[in-house]
């Protein structure tokens, strides 16, 4: 039996300061998440400079909390993982600077991790036996990717959004409906009380073979619908708009995921990212999965949000493949998955 690998992982790509301690990439010893959401809510979205200021205030407190909760000290750490990108450059730099200094001070390997890869790896934490290959749909406020996970730390990118991320579309439609930020959870909740067939919003599939996504046309259709109604003085049923919009988003997401699973002949689809917590998406994916004999996987809600445990998992699997970063690791705000 080989020795356990203990990873200290840091995630500061957006508005969550998070530090985790992981054992062997799948077991969480601690996963502390300090959310700034209340601070950014009054700005109606994440303000990069405000986020960076919060990270530098929090970072060492959160690191200590993570160590304490895992009941370890710095000396027990084998590798240091950190989000390299994509994300907000100023925010990422706080985490990277801390991680580099810790790795250097301890003389342990540093592993820079792709944030999107982290979201995918959240499924390894949730499902202890999950092994590649599988399909992963990564959907969040900033990202929409359809990925074939070929092996640990090996990915083939099949689809991505050509304009807005799925979560971004939720935020924008929520704002137009006068709903609070972030829009995703609110729309998901309202959708349960609305009629998803009430309004026929467009499903954008792009070219026939394409696995890419586009949500800006749908967003515009919703805005036009609202404007028209308001101009005519007609009533707007917020629940119906929410449900019909959500249905238009998730149908396309689910259809393309199922189609890719069939093309790659895999029997597993994992969902990841903040929008993976969307119950409408989960239930439609499960319904279609059952019809097609495909197992649908998704992490618990806390692992769908930005968190350092997923970064620790990705760092572990990269480390096992020999992917180690130098102390000159640079921040990569637009880092690509492959």
């Amino acid at each position: 039996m080989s020795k356990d690998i203990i990873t200290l992982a840091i995630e500061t790509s957006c508005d969550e300061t998070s530090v985790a301690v992981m054992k062997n990439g799948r077991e969480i010893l601690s996963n502390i998440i300090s959310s700034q959401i209340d601070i950014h809510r009054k700005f109606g979205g994440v303000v990069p400079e405000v986020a960076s200021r919060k990270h530098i205030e929090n970072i060492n407190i959160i690191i200590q909390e993570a160590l304490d909760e895992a009941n370890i000290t710095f000396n027990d750490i084998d590798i240091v993982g950190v989000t390299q990108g994509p994300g907000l450059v100023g925010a990422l730099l706080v985490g990277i600077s801390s991680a580099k200094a810790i790795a250097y001070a301890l003389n342990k390997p540093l592993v820079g991790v792709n944030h999107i890869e982290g979201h995918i790896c959240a499924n390894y934490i949730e499902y202890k036996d999950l092994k590649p290959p599988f399909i992963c749909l990564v959907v969040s406020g900033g990202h929409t990717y359809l990925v074939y996970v070929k092996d640990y730390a090996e990915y083939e990118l099949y689809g991505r959004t050509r304009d807005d991320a799925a979560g971004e579309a939720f935020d924008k439609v929520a704002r137009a409906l006068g709903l609070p930020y972030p829009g995703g959870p609110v729309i998901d909740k309202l959708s349960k009380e609305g009629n998803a067939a009430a309004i026929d919003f467009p499903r954008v599939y792009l070219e026939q073979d394409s696995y890419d996504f586009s949500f800006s046309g749908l967003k515009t259709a919703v805005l036009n619908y609202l404007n028209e109604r308001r101009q005519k003085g007609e009533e707007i049923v917020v629940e119906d708009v929410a449900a019909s919009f959500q249905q238009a988003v998730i149908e396309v997401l689910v259809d393309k995921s199922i189609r890719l699973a069939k093309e790659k002949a895999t029997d597993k689809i994992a969902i990841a990212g903040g929008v993976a917590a969307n119950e409408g998406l989960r239930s439609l994916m499960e319904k279609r999965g059952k019809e097609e004999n495909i197992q649908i996987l998704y992490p618990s809600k806390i692992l769908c949000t930005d968190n350092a445990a997923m970064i620790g998992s990705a760092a572990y699997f990269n480390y096992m493949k020999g992917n180690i970063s130098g102390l000159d690791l640079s921040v990569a705000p637009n880092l690509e998955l492959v």
Partner: protein
Amino acid sequence: MKVLAVDTSTVIATCAVMEEEKMLGEYSLDQKMSHSENLVPMIKEVLDSLKLKVSDIDLFAVAIGPGSFTGLRIGIATIKALAHVYNKPVVGVSTLEALAFNLSFNGLIVPIIDARRDRVYTGIYKWEEGILKNIMEPTVMEIDSLLDILIKEEDPIMMNGNGIFLHRQHIKDKLGDKVYFAKNIHNSCRALSVAELALQKKDKIEGTNYYNLVPEYLRESQAQRELKKKESEAQ
């Protein structure tokens, strides 16, 4: 007592190791937009050359601003993490005070750091009986407002900092013969000044530690300023 100091407030990345009154090593680079890539390798280079490990350092010091917001956070995050791993004290030093500390001058010492759009981060300092006294608190202002203050001063004035590169002629035109500019070697941020100041301040820093040390921005973020304006207008 060995102190490791860094300053990444401006385009210069600089780190130094000092033992009591003696410099052991210093490494400075003037290279745009590369603090994040350079800083830890620079620290490693200095410590390796001195055959020292991070665990040999007794005190960690960092320039806390004013300066580039991102640059400050890189230096502070790095120093806080190093101190945290070995549970050692940290000292934050004003970037302006450290710049003033570069100069031995009998008169007013006025460091200026470019804050963009003809604004500067500045403060006024003076040596009194071997101690560098702060006469005007660090602040951000238009270069012309600063010159309006300085023109009324009777003492000779020496200025340094990267604001000199931008405003040298303008300052000379306004202040004439009573202003002197530091030699180039004393013009830039030097981690050695941060280190020496940290050694002087180390017993007076109660309450500061690797948890709570933060940059001295001197300016709220633009979003904060706009929000405040909106709120005050709404009232």
